[in-house]
C-alpha cells in the first residue's frame, strides 16, 4: 500500500512542528525518517498513523493510503501497525495476550475464531522466535525480546502499513544490529510498506530503501542512501550524515589561507568554508605543492578496520578527525604529539545562506 502525503503541516500551539510537507512512499518500500530530535520526524510518523492530527488551518493537507483518503479516518480504522519507541506492551498481559489483543478486539463479524487466533498468534511468535515465551510477562523479557513482541503484535492485524518510532533506540549496539537485519529480512519477505523514525544515520542508511532527511520541521532531502551520501542536497544533510571537518579561510588567486595553512582551490576570491570527510584526508610527512596543512596528532583510536586520528593545529578552531587504514597507521608510526601534514583527497562546499543550495563537490 503506497502512502502519499500532500501539504501536511502541524503546529503545537504557536510553535510550528512541521512545515507543509509532501511525501510519496511507494508500495513495499522501507523508508526511514532521519533527523535530529525536534526535527518533526516523530510528529510526521504520528500524523501518518493518525495518532496526531495535521493542521486544518489555514488549509488542510491530505493523507492517502493507496487510493484511500484517510485524512479524516480515525487511527482505529486506518489499518496500520505501530511499533512504539518503548514498545508500550500491555504490562498486565502475557506475551500471547499481547499479540492476540488486536485480533480479540475485532468486531464480532470479522473476528477469527479462538482456534484461529491461537494458530495465528503462535505463527507470529514463531516468526519472531518467541514461541517459548508465550506465557511470560513483558517485564520478564529483555529489551530486544520486548521489541519483537511489539512487532508481532503490530503485524497480527495484518496492517497495510507498518510504522515504527525509533524501533531500536533503546537497545544496545549488538542487539540493534541483529534486529535491524532481521527487520530488513522480514520486510523483504512480507513485503509491507514501512516507515520508521530514527536519529541514527547509520541505521537509516543501512535499513532504508530511501531516506527522508528532516530538520526543523522541513524535509531536506529524499533519496536512496547511496545518493544521499554521494550527493547531499545541502550542508545540513552533509553534516548530519557523517563526521565533518571544517576549513575556513580567505581565497586569493586560487589559494585558500588560514594561519600558516594553505590549500590550492579552484574558487573565486572571497571567504570560504570547506567541508572534509575524515576518510577523505590523507596524512603525509611532507607538504605537497598543493596543500600545506600542518597538524599535530592528539589521539589515536583503533576502531574496527580503521584508526581514528584526532588532529589539532593553531589554525584550527575545532580539532579534525581523520580515519586511516591500519597499514598507513603502522607505516607512519603515528604517536601522540607527532607533527604531520594533511592532504585532502576531496573537499565539499555549499553556498552559504542561500535558499537554493548548489552542491559543488570538487577534487582538490
Amino acid at each position, binding site marked *: 500500500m503506497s502512502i502519499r502525503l500532500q501539504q501536511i503541516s502541524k503546529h503545537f500551539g504557536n510553535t510550528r512542528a512541521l512545515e507543509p510537507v509532501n511525501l510519496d512512499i511507494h508500495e513495499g518500500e522501507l523508508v526511514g525518517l532521519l533527523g535530529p530530535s525536534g526535527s518533526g520526524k516523530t510528529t510526521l510518523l504520528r500524523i501518518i498513523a493518525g495518532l496526531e492530527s495535521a493542521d486544518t488551518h489555514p488549509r488542510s493537507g491530505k493523507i492517502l493510503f493507496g487510493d484511500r483518503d484517510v485524512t479524516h479516518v480515525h487511527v482505529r*480504522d486506518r489499518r496500520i501497525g*505501530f511499533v*512504539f519507541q*518503548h514498545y*508500550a506492551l*500491555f504490562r498486565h498481559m502475557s506475551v500471547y495476550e499481547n499479540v492476540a489483543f488486536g485480533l480479540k*478486539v475485532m468486531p464480532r463479524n470479522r473476528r477469527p475464531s479462538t482456534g484461529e487466533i491461537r494458530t495465528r498468534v503462535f505463527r507470529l511468535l514463531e516468526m519472531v522466535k518467541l514461541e517459548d515465551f508465550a506465557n511470560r*510477562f513483558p*517485564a520478564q523479557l529483555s529489551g530486544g525480546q520486548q521489541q519483537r513482541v511489539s512487532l508481532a503484535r503490530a503485524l497480527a*492485524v495484518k496492517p497495510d502499513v507498518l510504522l515504527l518510532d525509533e524501533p531500536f533506540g533503546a537497545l544496545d549496539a549488538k542487539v540493534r544490529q541483529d534486529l535491524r537485519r532481521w527487520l530488513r529480512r522480514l520486510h523483504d519477505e512480507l513485503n509491507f510498506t514501512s516507515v520508521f523514525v530514527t536519529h541514527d544515520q547509520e541505521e537509516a542508511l543501512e535499513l532504508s530503501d530511501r531516506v527522508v532527511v528532516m530538520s526543523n520541521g522541513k524535509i531536506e532531502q529524499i533519496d536512496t542512501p547511496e545518493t544521499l551520501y554521494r550527493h547531499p542536497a545541502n550542508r545540513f544533510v552533509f553534516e548530519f550524515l557523517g563526521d565533518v571537518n571544517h576549513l575556513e579561510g580567505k581565497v586569493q588567486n586560487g589559494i585558500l589561507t588560514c594561519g600558516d595553512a594553505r590549500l590550492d582551490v579552484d574558487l573565486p576570491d572571497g571567504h570560504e568554508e570547506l567541508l572534509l570527510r575524515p576518510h577523505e584526508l590523507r596524512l603525509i610527512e611532507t607538504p605537497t605543492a598543493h596543500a600545506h596543512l600542518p597538524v599535530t596528532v592528539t589521539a589515536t583510536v583503533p576502531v574496527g578496520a580503521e584508526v581514528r586520528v584526532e588532529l589539532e593545529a593553531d589554525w584550527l578552531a575545532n580539532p579534525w578527525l581523520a580515519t586511516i587504514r591500519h597499514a598507513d597507521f603502522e607505516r607512519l608510526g603515528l604517536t601522540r604529539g607527532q607533527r604531520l601534514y594533511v592532504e585532502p583527497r576531496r573537499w565539499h562546499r555549499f553556498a552559504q545562506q542561500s535558499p537554493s543550495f548548489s552542491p559543488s563537490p570538487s577534487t582538490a
Partner: protein
Amino acid sequence: MRRIGDAPTVRRLLIGAALCLAALFLLLPLVAIFAQAFAQGVEVFWDNVSNEYTLSAIGLTLFVAVLTIPVCLVFGVALAWLVTRFSFPGRRILQTLIDIPFAVSPVVAGLIYLLLYGRTGWLGAWLDNYDIQLMFAWPGIVMVTIFVTCPFVARELIPLMQAQGSKEEEAAVVLGASGWTTFRRITLPNIRWALLYGVILTNARAVGEFGAVSVVSGAIRGQTNTLPLHLEQLYQDYNAVGAFACAALLALIALLTLAAKAGLEWRASRREAFL
C-alpha cells in the same frame, strides 16, 4: 562503615521515643475505647449496639457510604483521565481545585451547603417550591460527604496515570480497540490497585465524617443521625458505655480499613518485586 547518625545510643533513644509516643497517643486510646465499651460486659455492649437508634445510625452511615463511593469513583476516574490524558487551558487550575475539599474545614463545607441548599438558601427557596428538601435529610448528608471525600480517588490516580503515560492506550487504539474496550482492558487493569486504595480511603472518610455532616444533618435521632453524630449525642447524654460502644464500632471499621490498605500495599510491593 557506619552511617551518619548511626550511633547506638542515638538510635536507641530515637526508637524508644517513637515507641513511647506511639503507645501513648495511638495504642492507648484505642485500647481505652474497647476497654470502656466492654467495661460493663459484653451484654451491655450488645444492648447498646442493638439499640433501635444505634442500628438506625449504623444503617444511615452505611447507606451514605454506599451512595458516596460510586459517585467518588466515577468522578475520580473521570477527573484523573481528563487531567492526565488531555492538555487544555486551565488544566493546572483544575488540578489545584481538586484539593479544595482537603483545604477547607469540613464545618465550613457544611455551612456552604446549608447556605446554598437550606430552606432560606440561594437555591433552597427554588427547591422548596418543588417540595424538595435536601438539608436536614439524608440527601444533604450524602452531598456534603461527597464533597469531603471526592479528592481521594483522583489524588491516588493522577500521579500513577501520569507516570504510566498513555502509550499503552494508544497501542490498543491503533490495534482497533474502541474507547470503552481500551478503558476496560488496558486502563482499568493498570490502575486497579490505586483505585481500590482510593475507594478504601473514601470509605473510611465517608463513614467517619463528623463536621460537615453535623451541620447539615439536624441530628434527628432515628432519622438523620449517622454513627459519629449518634456517638456524640450519647456522650452528651452521659451514656458513656453507649458512646464507647459506637466508638468501638467506628474504630473497628477504621482497623479493617487499615488492614485492607496494608494488605493492598503488601500485594503491590510483592507485585513490584515480581516484576
